[in-house]
């Protein structure tokens, strides 16, 4: 037995449930995340990602279920969990009328760091925020705000990072830089649970957990998911992509038809019917089989949800 022992799980929760009024937002969710793992949380809006994250750090009390976070009970020990967790909210939640440095010094003070100034200085350098230290947080662009928020939640050297759509509304370059930082920190033993809508980000996670209706539908590495779902994808290129996508969407056997620039991706579970559909409706394009993209897998999963 070389698998992780129970104490190696940073997150270990079972059958979590949360209702808001009559709406069941999280419905029997069980999740284990091992130390040092980067775990991606995916799913449509309203699938329960944010609610689950909030339960993990004690911001919401689950209606049912139990579990531990960093070995501490998520219900009883919420205050102690907070000391060791860095939580980055979906909406920017630092003070816009304070400067970058002032915000960080506030956080350092709340976590009772022994050398708040030193910790802030070191982190400003590491996150390349030094040049903006005296700028008001409210005046930062989206990318810098998100970098500041990340800095604030790693300042106290947490053992677990919970990031709730940290890169929503941030440009591609800033997102890449952000993820480089995340990988850098995970390399140092930090465990990360991150929710996202971006497929390229999901592909950078060691494991992806896909949520729908407050439950985990599938989980595994990107490669495992692709293999497990068994999706077949063809790519068509040439003129008339827009016309072809309209026709192919309606064709039997096609689960997803998506345009990527000048190329058309058609995916389905049944190779024979998919080929038939392309033969009938995909005229005028040059077709070849391509490895399925994670995005195709999720569009397929989302389609199943609707069905």
């Amino acid at each position, binding site marked *: 037995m070389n698998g992780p022992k129970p104490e190696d799980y940073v997150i270990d929760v079972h059958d979590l449930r949360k209702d808001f009024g009559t709406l069941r937002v999280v419905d029997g969710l069980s999740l284990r995340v091992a130390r040092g793992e980067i775990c991606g949380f995916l799913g449509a809006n309203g699938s329960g990602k944010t609610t689950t994250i*909030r339960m993990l*750090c*004690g*911001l*919401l*009390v689950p209606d049912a279920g139990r579990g531990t976070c960093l070995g501490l009970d998520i219900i009883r020990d*919420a*205050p102690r969990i*907070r*000391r060791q*967790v860095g*939580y980055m*909210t979906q*909406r*920017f*939640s*630092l*003070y*816009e009328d304070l400067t970058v440095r002032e915000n960080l010094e506030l*956080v350092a003070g*709340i*976590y009772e760091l022994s050398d708040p100034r030193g910790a802030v200085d070191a982190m400003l350098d590491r996150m390349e925020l030094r040049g903006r230290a005296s700028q008001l947080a409210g005046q930062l662009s989206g990318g810098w705000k998100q970098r500041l928020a990340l800095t*604030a939640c790693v300042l106290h050297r947490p053992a677990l990072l919970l990031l709730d759509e940290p890169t929503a509304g941030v440009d591609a370059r800033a997102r890449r830089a952000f993820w480089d930082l995340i990988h850098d920190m995970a390399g140092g033993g930090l465990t990360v649970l991150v929710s996202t809508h971006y497929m390229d980000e999901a592909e950078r996670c060691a494991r992806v957990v896909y949520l729908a209706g407050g439950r985990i539908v599938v989980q595994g590495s990107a490669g495992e998911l692709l293999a497990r779902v068994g999706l077949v994808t063809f790519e068509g290129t040439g003129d008339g992509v827009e016309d072809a996508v309209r026709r192919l969407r309606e064709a039997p056997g096609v689960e997803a038809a998506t345009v990527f620039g000048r190329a058309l991706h058609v995916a389905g579970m049944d190779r024979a019917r998919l080929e038939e559909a392309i033969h009938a409706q995909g005229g005028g394009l040059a077709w070849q089989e391509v490895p399925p993209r994670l995005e195709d897998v999720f569009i397929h999963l989302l389609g199943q949800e609707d069905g």
Partner: protein
Amino acid sequence: MGMLSARRLRALLRKEWLQVRRDPMTLRLIIALPVMQLLIFGYAINSNPHDLPTGVLMAEPSRYERTIVAALRNTGYYRTRLVGSEAEAEADIAEGRLLFVVDFPPGFDRAVDRGEAPSVLVDTDGTDPTAVGYATAALSGLGDVLARDLPPARRGMALPVPFRFVVHTRYNPEQLTVLNVVPGLICVVLMMSTLMLTTLAITRERERGTMENLLAMPVRPVEVMLAKIAPYIGIGYLQVLVILLIAVLLLHLPVHGSILLLFGVLGVFIASNLALGITYSTLAANQMQAQQMAQFTMLPFMLLSGFVFPFQGMPRWARVIGEGMPTTHAMRIVRGVLLKGNGLAEILPDLWPIVLFTLCTVAVAVRFYRETLD
């Protein structure tokens, strides 16, 4: 683009109506506010107050004395009760339980019969001139109340008058309204600024989304609240200092009591307002609601406290409500210390209600401060 499109307007009207309806708390306050104002102005407030508490000192209750006391009561202005000793009367007037003390000299009846026109001393608490003004004026109509009791030989004689009222206005001998208004103003200004500022404190965090981050960090509710309250205590004191300086230097407000004591007590009063503000802040869903709650409170706190309208002139139910509000007690304390020179012993009866109010409000605030987003 037409000038005014009925369809566009209707869409906007519908949106506004929906938003009003989604905020039932605001709607309730908007209805309740005029109701409260009407009740206060219609029933509670009376600038010509009646039934003012009056202590009577009589060495040996005699016929004439009883007649005069009955006549005082019949004016409607005086609610009389016997007071045992001069010391007791002194304490009662200093602590505001009595507005008048009527003191008959010993051997009053004999002096009247002998035509000596003895004086009945009427001590009044002049801190609020409007409260006692009408009642004092009514004394002049009581010169002939003894007409029927006098021995037949003296009836109908214009001179000498049987007795005289000698009115002695305490604390504010010149009956300057400003001396009453300024101490009251200290309390009202403090209440308005501190209550307003703190009601917004927590709702603002919640609305801007910063509360979620704060909650996710290891902070205690008490820490958050203390931090929010502390700066405003300083601001409150600064206001007191400014008002007092202007009042003393420009308006010649006398300072008979201890300024140190005053500042100490005002600290408690400021704390009570901050506690209330924080409580509203935890209860309200948004800043707008919190602000309305504060406004809803400030109106009765101001009107029923005796700030502009004499406290003793209000009906019993309004006085009971008034007694429950910290502003009422603070106003008495500030007037007492500044104008009457009251010390700690005299202000204690008004100090503990403020402390009690503060503790209760803090308890509510801590109870409703949510450590989670539930």
